[in-house]
């Protein structure tokens, strides 16, 4: 048993740290440190810098612009990005669609899309959820009817994060009504500039615009934008949902936010004394740190140990459940630290204390997206109880 990095791993961490230190623009770092979500241009700028080293898609093979990094190096890189703090590589491109194309896509699709995904020349969003299909994703109804060498798509997607910023969407559509609900689904890539697509913003409880509804009205999609086989899109979806486990726990984010909480507690005074002087608050921060450390070791233990994965096949649910809980607790703490001065409603960018109160509101989404806490509990309970 050993919890330390090897000399080579330590050298890699130092290399990453030095690279981020030298190349991360100050204004991006400052915005994220204050608690703002990255702007689109922040993510694009930073991902292109990372992509110079293959670090935008570190887990991809070199032939597609990746760095072929092993699991430990990936975790180190992710941790350093979070702790900087710097924007993460755009997740739909790099962790979802990219691996799906490598597994199910044609060589032409790979050659065309993968470099653009890595460099964020195209911004993809994910068109999975529908008004009637949330946790029961396979019940989706957005239909794609084959007409010659096109699919004609009609229907509606919802909760589509960043659709208003995106160039393309990868969507699950129904291509066969008769079959078992999982069997008539196909995985399509759709250019959002195609006629018949309408995007309507959904304001979330933080007052900001992350989410959208996307309407498809006789949208014509060339058949060469089908990924994998027709009616086998569920395979792609399952692969996509099961594939991404490295970032699921968000450990580095928890450390960075907890560190920020400590900083705010030291810098903010109440009746002339720093909040940090309150031993109860310090103990609360310490207790959160203990749980983040527990999550961090659990994350390594599962991701790096095949025997542990075999013992707990549903380990991703453990990571998602605990990671979500901690993110939400830390965001709630940050909002309490922002206190009464964090109450004024303003455009997110001009908040003196950072947008900690609205970020707390939006953190409630963490236990809803990516498989709700209830679904994760169901998955884990199935393995435990039967």
């Amino acid at each position: 048993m050993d919890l330390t990095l090897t000399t080579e791993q330590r050298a890699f961490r130092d290399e990453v740290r030095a690279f981020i230190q030298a190349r991360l623009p100050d204004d991006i770092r400052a915005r994220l440190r204050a608690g703002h979500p990255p702007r689109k241009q922040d993510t694009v700028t930073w991902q292109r810098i990372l992509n110079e080293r293959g670090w935008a898609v570190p887990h991809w093979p070199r032939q597609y612009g990746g760095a072929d990094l092993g699991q430990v190096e990936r975790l180190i890189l992710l941790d350093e990005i979070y702790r900087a703090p710097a924007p993460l590589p755009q997740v739909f491109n790099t962790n979802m669609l990219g691996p799906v194309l490598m597994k199910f896509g044609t060589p032409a699709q790979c050659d065309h899309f993968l470099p653009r995904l890595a460099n964020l020349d195209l911004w993809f969003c994910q068109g999975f959820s529908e008004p009637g299909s949330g946790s029961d994703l396979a019940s989706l109804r957005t239909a794609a009817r084959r007409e010659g060498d096109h699919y004609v798509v009609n229907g509606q997607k919802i909760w589509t994060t960043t659709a208003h910023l995106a160039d393309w969407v990868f969507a699950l559509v129904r291509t066969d009504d008769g079959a078992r609900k999982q069997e008539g689904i196909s995985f399509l890539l759709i250019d959002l500039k195609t006629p018949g697509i309408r995007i309507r913003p959904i304001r979330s409880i933080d007052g900001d615009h992350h989410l959208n509804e996307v309407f498809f009205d006789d949208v014509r999609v060339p058949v060469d934008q089908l990924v994998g086989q027709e009616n086998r899109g569920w395979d792609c979806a399952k692969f996509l949902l099961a594939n991404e486990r490295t970032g699921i726990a968000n450990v580095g984010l928890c450390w960075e936010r907890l560190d920020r909480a400590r900083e705010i507690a030291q810098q903010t005074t109440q009746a002339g004394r720093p909040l940090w002087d309150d031993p109860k608050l310090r103990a609360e921060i310490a207790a959160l740190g203990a749980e983040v450390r527990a999550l961090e070791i659990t994350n390594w233990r599962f991701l790096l140990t095949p025997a542990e994965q075999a013992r707990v096949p549903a380990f991703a649910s453990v990571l998602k459940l605990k990671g979500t809980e901690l993110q939400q607790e830390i965001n709630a703490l940050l909002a309490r630290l922002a206190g009464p001065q964090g109450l004024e409603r303003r455009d997110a960018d001009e908040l003196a204390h950072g947008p900690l109160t609205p970020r707390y509101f939006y953190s409630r989404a963490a236990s809803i997206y990516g498989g709700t806490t209830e679904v994760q509990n169901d998955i884990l309970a199935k393995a435990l109880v039967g």
Partner: protein
Amino acid sequence: MNFELDDDQRALGDSLARLLADRGAFEQRRALVAGDAWHDAQTWSALAGLGLTALPLPEAHGGFGGGARDLLPVMQAMGRALSLEPYLATVLGATALRLAGTDAQQAQVLPGVAEGGTRLAWAHDEPEGRHAPLWVQAAARPAKDGWRLTGVKSPVAGLGPAQRVVVSARVSGAPGDAAGCALFLVDPAAPGVQARAFRLVDDTAGGELRLDDAPAEPLGDPLDAAVQALAIERTQALGLAAACADMVGAAEAAFALAMEYVRTRKQFGRAIGENQALRHRASQMFVALEMARSMALAAAVAADEPDGEHARADLSRAKLSVGRNARAVAHGAIQLHGGIGMTEEYAVGHSLRRIHVMDQCFGDADAHAARLAALA
């Protein structure tokens, strides 16, 4: 990074688990508690036969030189079996003796420990100190014919079955001072020593040691403040790591019982484990158990490498996290059982009793939250 036991560690843990399943089944444990014995002498011999009493001792004195990592699977098995053997008390007494005692002192005591003939106890905590790590009021003074100790040590795990006790006492300074404590070997049958042995709430052997000008043999040089302080700190760190492993074992046992119960217990014509409310509780308990497992590992590594990067913080984080998470598992396991979980004749509640005892030793969750707050 590596999160797995090596083959020897795993084999030892497995052998011990088999031994305790044979000799320490819950029914045997109940019978033992109903009688006068603190523990089962045959089980103790069998532990020695497996080499466990020699495990943490130096090779020069008949031991295997094992550390906290080696103790992890052992203590986990002890916790899982709710063992009554005064193993940890003996390990800690031997560790303190190894760290502070002269070579001659080690040669005199440790081979007996290794062979299983000698049981020790570690008497550091005092009633007034509660969880303060160095609140030692017991006073040591040099007399003409050796050193004398006066003070109260409580609770002392394993006091009843111990032949010798390693006691911390102050040669200088005030309670709470980092320097000025030293370690002494005390015979609990000596004049001036009142050893009141009792069972702790988890049925393990405990006790209170009242010293009134009692004769004591200093371990090493009692005025060598650095060596003495280090011996206390490292012994407590090993105890903390062992307590974490023990709590994980006790939580595992409670969790396993609860899963078995919800699969088999029927109400309203179906297994209660089909109810989502119970299923989700099981899932949350499992998450807590995995967190505790991770931190027991962190504690073992930190106790073995006390000068490592995060060692001091990891020890406190581990005690805090394991204490809270193991307790949550035990609470959930009792709840899933319903009424039967509340009965003394059923094992699940004994996990909670054991976890509570271990949480209260070597600093409880709150105390370690406060220590972490002071570190930051």
